[in-house]
């Protein structure tokens, strides 16, 4: 586990760890095989990740990481790197 402690003493996760968990949530949500989950993921790929699936995914991600994304960020969470960035930022500001 690549965890470290920030100045306040709370556990912070590395981006690789966040990405792994994000991919796992996406895979579970859209029933992807491990190989598919490792590939290029984004809105439209897998097919279930459309505007309807997007909000369901956002809610699952918030549950998984215990964060609340600001409303105006929701539309930007269309790829794994964008989600990782948002999780990192939300965790930092929490």
């Amino acid at each position, binding site marked *: 586990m690549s965890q470290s402690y920030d100045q306040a003493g709370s556990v912070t996760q590395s981006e690789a760890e966040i990405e792994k968990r994000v991919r796992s949530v996406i895979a579970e949500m859209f029933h992807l095989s491990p190989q598919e989950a490792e590939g290029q993921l984004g809105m439209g790929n897998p097919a279930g990740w459309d505007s309807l699936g*997007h*909000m369901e995914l956002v809610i699952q991600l918030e549950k998984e990481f215990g964060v609340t994304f600001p409303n105006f960020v929701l539309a930007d969470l269309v790829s794994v790197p964008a989600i990782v960035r948002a999780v990192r930022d939300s965790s930092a500001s929490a």
Partner: protein
Amino acid sequence: MFESIPIVQILICLISGALVISFSFLRRASGFLVLSLLGIALVYRQLAVGYVLINVIVLLFVTSLARITANSDAKRRLRWRWSCAALIALVVAFIVGRWYQIETKGLLVGGIEWSLFSVDMWLLLRLVTFLWEFGSGRIAQPSLLTFAIWTCMPFTVFGPLLRYSQFESQLPFMREAEVARAVYTRTWVLNALRATALLVCGITLSRLHATMFASGTQGVPYWIKLLDSFGISPWSFLLTWWGFYKLMECLALMWSVSLPPSFNAPFGRPNISEFWANWNMTATSVFRDYLFYTRWGQQRVNLYLNTLIIFFLVGLWHGANWYWVIWGMLHGIGFCCFIWYRHRRASKQFETNGATMRILGPILTYVFVCSCWILPSRILKVLGQI
């Protein structure tokens, strides 16, 4: 249909693009600004002053708000709330103005015609996205020059929508070397030819429609009406505007401005959600990003209610009259049915044959979309008789 194509705008874009490519002294901010303002003056004529002033008022509001809320985290919420309040005020003014058709009566204040605001759906959308992006902190205090070029640029006056943040991120377009490089390529020429071909096909179909119904609809065989409603009219509309927006994308590259795509083969999509995801995408994305992606709208019943509200607003954006309200509500009901079907299928409450749905889905979606253009006038006719 043909009459509604902004031919003047196409010519202005073509000429301004050619000027920028030909004369290096125009390839700077002041050059782009002069060309943009000239374009606005030619497109809007007597309404141009009102157009510019509306934008100036919004910019002044945003600039003042930026100063008040600068360098303070606590004041970010204040900025968001005031931006939302201004946004709602703009939308309400637009809808009320359209509902009472003030453009036909005129709204002369201080010798300036202000009625434009109530009819210019793209101006409204631009300002809404601008206020939203400013309120959310996506854009900082905008510069007057950048804002003026963005809002007056001829390539986006009648759509498609280029959000301020998207435009701002392209600002290095003022670098001389970049200008014209994108244009002298085979891809650009092919895209411009494709856009022109789409436009010509759309206009030809539109002419065909006009010829068929030159002496009214009475006496026209039923099968011709059917062919028109489910073939000629929808395709003429799609091809015309697809071609027009694609042409704008090509011409904007003459200024090295990259516009997002507007249409992506929306007919033939397997469901209504896919249709909307590929129809007039720059406008659709605003409603999706700002209204659909909300937590409130995702809770059980709210999902359906929120969908109906969104399509009601989409209808009002097209036109504040009963035709567009009914059109929006029909799409909203269709979309709700799709959400319900999707949820039931996901929870395996019923099984569907994949192969059958692959064939039936696009047909049903196409027939539904075409019906939504025909039904409102029929419904209004029936209601009128009652």
